[in-house]
């Protein structure tokens, strides 16, 4: 059995979700090849070659792949994927954007957001915003999966030296182009990859008060998140949103501050190893999932917490 794993990257660095996806591929078994598709992405290919447990790295380096436009990428992956039994991609906005397009070209029904490999053709995935877990069996000849990173522990990023093979296949559908992007700049770790996440909710009252959380985040080396209520109220930008419709996170420590714990938020963080909730409402549903709950006014508790760290 042979599996092709798509490497998530920005043409400079390999993104962590790739390593969880390789772990899912290992759970399926067989040989694993990585595909680095991008432009001027040699550094990513070198990083990919060091990933433990893979056979080789395929590199498709061409301008039409620079921004992972689905219209161009899908033809490449469909062509290369023809010889593989499985194609796995991280369930990121990149993966979710192009994998279904590949599937349609190959007349296959993909499976989204896999959180567990039960057997090579059977997988678990959340449905209804995580309110139910479905065990599904693919009846297709090839399995196309998007893999939710929080379901698998990442494999080691550095410890091997696989062969790098250049793929000279260039597909340009010429029906879409990249215009620009506005990415959040931050010195903090990426939300989905951070060891510690501290999130604020409606209880923060306004955007300025998130500075209180920043101080704690600085001391813990934490990423900053927010509930949908805080995002919808305009306190913080939407790329900070943790929840079913935002980022799915599973850090070692998740600190929820002024967050009531709506089901949509819980769906995005309940797989965290240790959950701390700080909320003045002792009836808040967040306490039902928290390992450590502190019923307190956050405007007193957060500065006190910062002073203690």
């Amino acid at each position: 059995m042979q599996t092709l794993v798509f490497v998530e990257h920005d043409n400079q660095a390999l993104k962590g979700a790739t390593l969880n996806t390789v772990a899912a591929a290992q759970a399926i078994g067989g040989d694993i090849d990585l595909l680095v598709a991008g432009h001027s992405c040699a550094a990513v290919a070198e990083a990919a070659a060091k990933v433990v447990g893979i056979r080789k790295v395929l590199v498709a380096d061409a301008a039409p792949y620079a921004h992972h436009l689905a219209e161009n990428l899908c033809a490449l992956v469909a062509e290369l994927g023809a010889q593989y039994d499985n194609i796995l991609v991280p369930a990121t906005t990149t993966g979710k954007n192009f994998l279904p397009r590949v599937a349609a070209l190959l007349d296959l029904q993909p499976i989204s957001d896999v959180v567990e490999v039960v057997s090579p053709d059977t997988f678990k995935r959340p449905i209804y915003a995580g309110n139910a877990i479905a065990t599904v069996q693919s009846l297709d000849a090839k399995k196309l999966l998007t893999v939710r990173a929080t379901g698998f522990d990442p494999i080691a990023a550095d410890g091997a030296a696989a062969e790098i093979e250049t793929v000279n296949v260039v597909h340009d559908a010429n029906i879409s182009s990249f215009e620009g992007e506005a990415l959040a700049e931050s010195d903090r770790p990426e939300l989905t990859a951070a060891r510690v996440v501290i999130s604020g909710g409606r209880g923060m009252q306004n955007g300025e008060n998130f500075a209180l959380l920043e101080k704690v985040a600085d001391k813990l080396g934490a990423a900053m998140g927010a509930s949908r209520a805080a995002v919808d109220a305009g306190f913080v930008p939407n790329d900070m949103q943790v929840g079913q419709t935002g980022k799915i996170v599973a850090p070692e420590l998740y600190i929820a501050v002024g967050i009531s714990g709506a089901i949509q938020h819980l769906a995005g963080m309940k797989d965290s190893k240790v959950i701390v909730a700080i909320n003045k409402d002792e009836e808040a549903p967040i306490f039902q999932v928290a390992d450590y709950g502190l019923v307190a006014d956050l405007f007193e508790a957060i500065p006190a917490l910062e002073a203690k760290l």
Partner: protein
Amino acid sequence: MKALVAVKRVIDYNVKVRVKPDQSGVDLANVKMAMNPFCEIAVEEAVRLKEKGVVSEIVAVTIGPKAAQEQLRTALALGADRAVLIETDDEVQPLAVAKLLKGVVDEEQPQLVMLGKQSIDGDNNQTGQMLAALSGFSQGTFASEVVVAEDYVKVTREIDGGLQTVKLTLPAVITTDLRLNEPRYTSLPNIMKAKKKPLDTKTPSDFGIDLTPRVKTLKVEPPPERQAGIKVGSVDELVEKLKNEAKVI
């Protein structure tokens, strides 16, 4: 230009989902159903484009049981001009949905096809992308802003690190994210008007599409329950527990 909007009948988002005791699925008996929230945003966006004079006609389409007419009537009340129901009681998986919609695209020849990015039942997030592939159209998924010009559309997309803008040659498929717009409420006069708007009913066999499921659901379970922990009395106690008991800081 003509816009095609695909909508889906799903469990109302306010309903608490319950898994059936026999693990065969989610209990939908006597449960309130509604239009998928992301589809509502797609209808709203099409209506706004029509109000701006960009779109001249909006056709709403759904695939589902006879009762899915209700969701088409909602789309008509929101501002769609006519509707198509592809009626079936069978489970239709995203690839088959995309093939049926491709059949409608071939008949209607829209320049814009709008869908929700995912439905809140299956959470697959696949249909729009697959329809784009089958039709050979460009795609703008997870849209938070849509600007249509004569022969292209600029779509700002919500991606993991922030926002990305792409320029797409028309015809294009656009899937909507939450922040694209806030759908209007249907007014009573518009609900009354919607009853008179044309609604065609077709069947999957009209399109010659094989609906045989490619994925078999073996069981559906409630998610593992997380046990509530303890309440701590002070910040000092919290820090002590995190250091010495949980050992995470």
